[in-house]
């Protein structure tokens, strides 16, 4: 008999919240028409879209007209960065970002560079925290149009000093984008940003919905071909049933966020402590204190990351890895690289509202044996 599955990869995609499922099914009946048209079905769709926007905006504390639904978190991040650069192109062509941004942001930066722009990467320390002095110097340099900072690392969980980074941006007159994909629905949002993005499937909404929030007065300009939908910020018709489900589940996730963080953070503490104590030669990475409540990452010396993921999968555990052998590019995670921590044998565990203490206990009970078996097979025991 195969073991019961334990899904521990919420940072990639959280299981859909029951509220999202209910809202999605209900909205399929009423939300198929184009909200921009002038007939009854369209008016009903418009009402649903307006209500979803209002609910999502209220849940994260912004104005409804500042929030657009995008086709994904990636599309939101691309729009945030490229739109911020477009809006301030007369000031200069430089983008400042941290070394540990999500690949969506880094790909937008590369796109910008390929078109003659400049991107400046600011380093992090061994725990994955932003080098604030380097950040302040980078954003104060001449020609900086825009800055972008991940709110907390999606790979190692370290929360970034957004208020201080935002203050440096404000001093330099540079607008800041915060990639809040791992924050929204989990922890209170920091202040000081001009543009914020998130992704619904990280909080239990459906895949294929992103949030793009542009604060009033921000010099942001759509980098895409013109389209009147979503205040002109993101082209194409909104996937309305998915947006309705995203908004409903966001409201539910935000309402439960404090209680869930209080429940999950001690489980992450337990994983950090027990893995370090019970698996020999392991490096638990990321800040032990300033971190997300639901995410923990560690690397096992001499262990092949892909083999570890497969071994865990055979025992029913779904986790992800930043090891090079698990990536399509065969390069180690740029986040682990920037931190200077061990990249092979890497495992990221991320918890969600369905994760139980028993799930975590079973993982902790089985992990040391799985790692020991892999080391024995590779002949590296005791090395």
């Amino acid at each position, binding site marked *: 008999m195969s073991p019961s599955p334990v899904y521990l990869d919420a940072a990639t995609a959280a299981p859909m919240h029951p509220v999202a499922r209910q809202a999605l099914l209900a909205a399929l009946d009423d939300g198929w028409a184009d909200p921009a048209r002038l007939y009854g079905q369209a008016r009903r769709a418009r009402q649903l879209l307006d209500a979803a926007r209002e609910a999502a905006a209220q849940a994260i504390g912004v104005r409804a007209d500042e929030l657009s639904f995008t086709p994904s978190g990636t599309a939101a991040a691309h729009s945030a960065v490229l739109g911020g650069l477009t809006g301030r192109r007369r000031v200069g062509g430089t983008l400042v970002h941290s070394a540990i941004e999500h690949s969506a942001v880094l790909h937008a930066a590369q796109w910008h560079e390929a078109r003659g722009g400049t991107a400046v990467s600011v380093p992090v320390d061994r725990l994955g925290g932003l080098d604030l002095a380097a950040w302040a110097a980078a954003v104060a340099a001449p020609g900086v149009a825009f800055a972008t900072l991940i709110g907390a690392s999606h790979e190692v969980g370290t929360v970034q000093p957004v208020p201080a980074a935002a203050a440096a941006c404000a001093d330099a007159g540079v607008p800041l984008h915060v990639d809040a994909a791992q924050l929204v629905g989990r922890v209170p949002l920091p202040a000081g940003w001009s543009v914020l993005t998130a992704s619904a499937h990280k909080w239990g909404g459906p895949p294929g919905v992103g949030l793009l929030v542009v604060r009033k007065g921000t010099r942001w300009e759509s980098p895409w071909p013109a389209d009147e939908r979503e205040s002109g910020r993101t082209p194409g018709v909104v996937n309305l049933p998915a947006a309705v489900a995203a908004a409903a589940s966001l409201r539910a996730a935000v309402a439960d966020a404090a209680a869930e963080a209080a429940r999950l953070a001690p489980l992450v503490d337990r994983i950090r402590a027990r893995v370090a104590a019970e698996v020999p*030669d392991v*490096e638990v990475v990321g800040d032990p204190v300033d971190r997300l409540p639901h995410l923990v990452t560690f690397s096992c*010396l*001499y*262990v*092949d990351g892909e083999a570890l993921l497969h071994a865990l999968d055979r025992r029913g555990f779904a986790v992800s890895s930043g*090891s*090079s*052998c698990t990536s399509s590019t*065969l*390069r*180690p995670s740029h986040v*682990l*690289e920037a931190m*200077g*921590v*061990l*990249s*092979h*044998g890497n495992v990221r565990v991320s918890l969600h509202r369905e994760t139980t203490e028993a799930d975590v206990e079973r993982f902790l009970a089985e992990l040391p044996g799985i790692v020991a078996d892999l080391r024995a097979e*590779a002949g*590296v025991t005791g*090395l």
Partner: protein
Amino acid sequence: MSGADRAGGPVPDEVLDCRGQRCPLPVINLARRLPELPVGAVVRVLADDPAAAVDIPAWCRMRGQEFVAAHPDAYDVRRTS
């Protein structure tokens, strides 16, 4: 051994050719070989897997050995204990 090589670092006492190996193999081979060398000896690990650039310095930190220098696809490590 004494003197300096072209890269300006110490001349390695031994070269470990791990080219074509995927991580963690270069680190495993380093971990096997270094304790067999005398304290103070320098081994140069040739490795073209990009992960080696991260993992060899990290191994030195975890094992208390000295990471001397990184060259293109080559990493010098001194046995200190």
